[in-house]
């Protein structure tokens, strides 16, 4: 046993282990001691990469996920166990209890790929008991964002498992295809803009230099070069995108946010800038601004025509957008419309993992629809039946 000075890395290891153990129902009864002795019981660095000490750890810190699951287990855990024959009328008590035993201690498993139609009824039940109260009380909007952020950490962790060729790692133009090792990432254009040869080489040069440079001073120098290029080619959106990335590299969060807002205003039709803008709003916890954004509405379909839309991280952010939109608007009709549109999208089927996220979100919609409009229940059941065509059928 040796003295170890990186306390944060050790605490993260414990948090990561807590998530794994909870997921597998393998948490020792004395684990409550962790809450008492660990120094960082407040969220400090969500999503920041941390030093990995064990083989099982993911590069994304799981502290916030662990704290969220701990909260669920402590405050809502007991509600999962109750059997209500009126709701689960097709289930016997034994079946229900067997199902509960299979559920992880913290509630729903973040690995949504395990979902099947046989689990729908109890999952909706769980949703109604746990998440719905938050969704239907406007003053608890911040809680929704907390939950979304927590989910985001899980998804980002999944994305980090995707194999990205080393030489392409820096490019935001990659098409990351989760869990599909046979498919090579494909280059897609971010913007509808055709740069001339000089612009093109300048873009590549700036992009590459940005990846290589390490010090902040070097990054500030690159920012100057980008600004000069922007003056020369004011119509070129790639330089604006590079400027945002350069500020991020230089660790100038405020300036990066400012650029993200400007880019979004200058190119309101660009899905890439919109997503970056949303990511910034979310990162800064600007729930009021996010709310305003969602309330304004968005011409979703306009962007689905473009091939680059549903690829890798863009898909992820778009998913966040849909989830956020639904959570804030509580508008089932528009959510269903979007959901239908997403599932019909030609490139949709190749995303094995992401396909599982949407049914989960749909479960929320389904649960809510039951509350809002009981008449639509039958129609939704039929659609669900088609969606989850398999050995299990929904009654």
């Amino acid at each position, binding site marked *: 046993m*040796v003295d170890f000075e990186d306390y944060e890395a050790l605490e993260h290891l*414990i948090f990561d282990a807590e998530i794994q153990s909870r997921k597998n129902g393998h948490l*020792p009864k*004395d*684990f409550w001691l*962790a809450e*008492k*002795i660990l120094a960082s019981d407040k969220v400090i660095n969500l999503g920041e990469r941390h030093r990995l000490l064990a*083989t099982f750890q993911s590069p994304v810190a799981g502290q916030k996920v662990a704290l969220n699951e701990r909260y669920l287990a402590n405050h809502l855990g007991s509600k999962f166990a109750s059997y209500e024959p009126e709701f689960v009328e097709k289930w016997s008590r034994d079946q229900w209890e067997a199902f509960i035993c299979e559920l992880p201690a913290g509630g729903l498993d973040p690995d949504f790929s395990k979902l099947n139609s046989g689990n729908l009824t109890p999952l909706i039940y769980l949703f109604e008991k746990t998440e719905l109260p938050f969704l239907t009380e406007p003053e608890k909007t911040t809680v929704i964002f907390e939950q979304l952020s927590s989910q985001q950490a899980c998804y980002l962790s999944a994305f980090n498992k995707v194999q990205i060729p080393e030489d392409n790692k820096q490019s935001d133009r990659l098409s990351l295809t989760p869990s599909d090792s046979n498919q090579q990432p494909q280059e897609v254009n971010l913007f509808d803009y055709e740069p001339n040869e000089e612009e093109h080489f300048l873009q590549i040069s700036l992009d590459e230099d940005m990846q290589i440079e390490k010090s902040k001073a070097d990054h500030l120098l690159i920012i100057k070069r980008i600004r000069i290029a922007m003056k020369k080619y004011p119509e070129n959106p790639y330089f604006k995108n590079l400027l945002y990335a350069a500020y991020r590299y230089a660790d100038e969060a405020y300036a990066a946010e400012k650029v993200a807002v400007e880019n979004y205003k200058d190119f309101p039709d660009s899905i890439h800038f919109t997503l970056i803008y949303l990511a910034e709003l979310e990162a800064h916890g600007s729930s009021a601004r996010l709310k305003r954004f969602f309330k304004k509405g968005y011409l979703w379909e306009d962007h689905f025509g473009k091939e680059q839309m549903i690829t890798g991280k863009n898909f992820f952010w778009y998913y966040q957008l849909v989830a956020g939109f639904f959570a804030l608007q509580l508008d089932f009709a528009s959510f269903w419309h979007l959901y239908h549109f997403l599932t019909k999208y030609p490139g949709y089927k190749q995303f094995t993992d992401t396909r599982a996220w949407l049914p989960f979100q749909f479960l929320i919609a389904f649960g809510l629809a039951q509350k809002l409009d009981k008449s639509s229940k039958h129609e939704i059941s039929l659609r669900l039946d088609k969606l989850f065509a398999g050995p299990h059928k929904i009654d």
Partner: protein
Amino acid sequence: MGSKSSKKRAKKINPHGKLLKSTKRQTNKETYFESGRIKSLAPGRYYIGHTFSKKEEMIIFITITRKHVNGNISFVIFGIHDKTGWIEKVQYDFNVPVGILMHL
């Protein structure tokens, strides 16, 4: 609440104060951690080590300590499976000499 009820229970079993030392100590250390008083102690050192199970799987041991004013420590040890990430073991004690860690 928890500490009071456990004391009452202890009194019922042993009305003449003939509690075994180890049982009493177990109760004390549990109530001490439960009360949250441990957080008021200064953070001590963190240790890491590993051992191998019978199946030759690596178990990482993390020891987190807090310092008492008398120089003793309170600690919790987490045994974590290197590959599965499952927490296999949790061991703890309070107000013991630092040297005790060498014998665990």
